[in-house]
């Protein structure tokens, strides 16, 4: 479990609203937290991640490690937080390695950690392949590796698991767990509620509003799942993958 090491939160979103998409959402994550963002399609998950990443302006405030992001210049933002889009669209045939190395742009293009990230995300064998000829899952891993090499302490990933096969999905979760143990904070949106159950913290969005936030066992109750997703859930014995 994440513990609050200092009085400073890793990410604070206060009263964020985006007309028609997000309604007065407030949220706070402590350093070292592996947090999940769940909600039905169109509930505002991607919007909230973009607001938290400082890519979409909202009414309300966003602060990273206690600093208001409006006061952080763009190049420094690249060092502090990293955002991964829901879908990777590559028009040009950059090599896998060069795209991952773009994660070091804000750090003076030093390529530090690039080879490790390629290994980590099972991309070493593809490192010279053009990114516009990769499968959806491979492209996703390229984006995650690029986010990882930034070394940013706040990671915001939009549905990173959706295009991945089970093995790579579990590996990504393992790496997510590892970086948060090292003190980074990770907020990822996802649809698999079984995975959400294994995270430190879960944020539930519904129709642009924050419906609940807290430890998964407290938040993901059958009543809430029925209310938000319209699905009935019960504990059953079935196939259980070993989650990190």
């Amino acid at each position, binding site marked *: 479990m994440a513990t609050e090491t200092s009085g400073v939160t890793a990410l604070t979103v206060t009263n964020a609203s985006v007309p028609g998409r997000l309604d007065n959402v407030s949220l706070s994550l402590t350093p070292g937290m592996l947090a999940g963002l769940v909600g039905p399609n169109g509930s505002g998950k991607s919007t909230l991640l973009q607001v938290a990443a400082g*890519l979409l302006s909202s009414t309300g405030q966003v602060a990273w490690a206690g600093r208001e992001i409006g006061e952080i210049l763009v190049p420094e933002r690249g060092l502090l937080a990293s955002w991964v889009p829901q879908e990777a669209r590559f028009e040009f045939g950059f090599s896998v390695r060069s795209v991952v190395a773009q994660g070091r742009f804000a750090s003076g293009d030093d390529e530090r950690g690039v080879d490790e990230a390629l290994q980590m995300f099972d991309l070493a064998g593809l490192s010279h392949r053009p990114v516009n000829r990769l499968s959806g899952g491979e492209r996703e891993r390229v984006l995650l590796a*690029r986010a990882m090499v930034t070394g940013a302490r706040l990671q915001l990933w939009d549905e990173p698991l959706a295009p991945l096969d089970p093995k790579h999905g579990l590996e990504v979760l393992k790496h997510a767990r590892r970086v948060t143990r090292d003190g980074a904070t990770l907020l990822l949106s996802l649809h698999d509620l079984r995975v959400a159950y294994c995270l430190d913290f879960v944020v539930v969005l519904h129709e642009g509003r924050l419906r609940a936030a807290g430890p998964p066992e407290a938040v993901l109750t059958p009543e809430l799942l029925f209310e938000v997703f319209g699905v009935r859930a019960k504990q059953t014995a079935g196939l259980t993958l070993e989650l990190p």
Partner: protein
Amino acid sequence: MTSPWVHRFALPVSILLLGLLALASLGIGDMRLGPARIIAGLLHRDDLAAIVLWNIRLPRMLVAMLVGAALAASGLVMQAYFRNSLASPGLLGVTSGGAAGAVVVIGLGWATTSIFILPVAAIIGALTATGAVVLLARRGASTERLLLAGVALNALLGAVTSYVLSNFTLTYERNAKILFWLLGGLEDRTWEHVVMASPIVVAAALLWPLGRPMDLLSLGADEAQSLGVDVKQLRRSLLALSTVLTALATSVAGTVGFVGLIVPHLLRLVVGPEHRRLVPLTLIGGAAFVLACDLVGRSTVGGLRVGIVTSLIGGPFFLWLLRRQA
């Protein structure tokens, strides 16, 4: 992926090629000059060769190189900006905007008052067209959207040009000048045109350090912003530079089409998509391409204007690209 060998030799080879084309451009014509006479002429040791070189061939060669470098670089920038390898100043109507600006001031008879009027009018026309394209393609610059916006703008700006041609009481001289813009050519270029086009060198120098951030932008604006690129400022600089490059080229040579599409495309196939390599190579490659097209045009019986040659090559090339994309 391209090999390190290609990366190492692409720049020296392209410089060598440009040098050879420059030599050919100075040597070929009604009066053929060998390398020895070219050197003698440039040093004023051969009077006849000196007159031909200094008054006719050298300014024409320099204008061709500047125009080619500017149009190719402008295309490269637009492709990164719109994340679309089919974007280019001609197809998007930016060239037509520059031409319309130029034609209006020629039609009004203002162009003769100062050598700066024409480039400034071309820049204003091109900026207007660029502004329109950016507004139309604000969210999601799909190929269809961009090309249709280009079709509309080209038609609209063509109407402006036709209006000037048909409704203004024009002297023969002005009419000829306007036709010159519309056809695109390098005939009778003088040192005045070299001076008019010379800010291209400044714009190219400003573009040089933007190669790396262009890499990130070409893979997505939000992603680039998240990685620490000041996307708003970068986009503003890129648009201004590419528009000014196109406008300056248009103001000295008229509408020379397809250079911004062909050159970056071919170079991307050879050295890959990284802009730190592509920016210098595109400048040199563009200069070489227009110089070569001008040579072909001059060597053809009866003579072909450079804009006709680039279009004869560019049209089929564009169709091939569309087929390849589909």
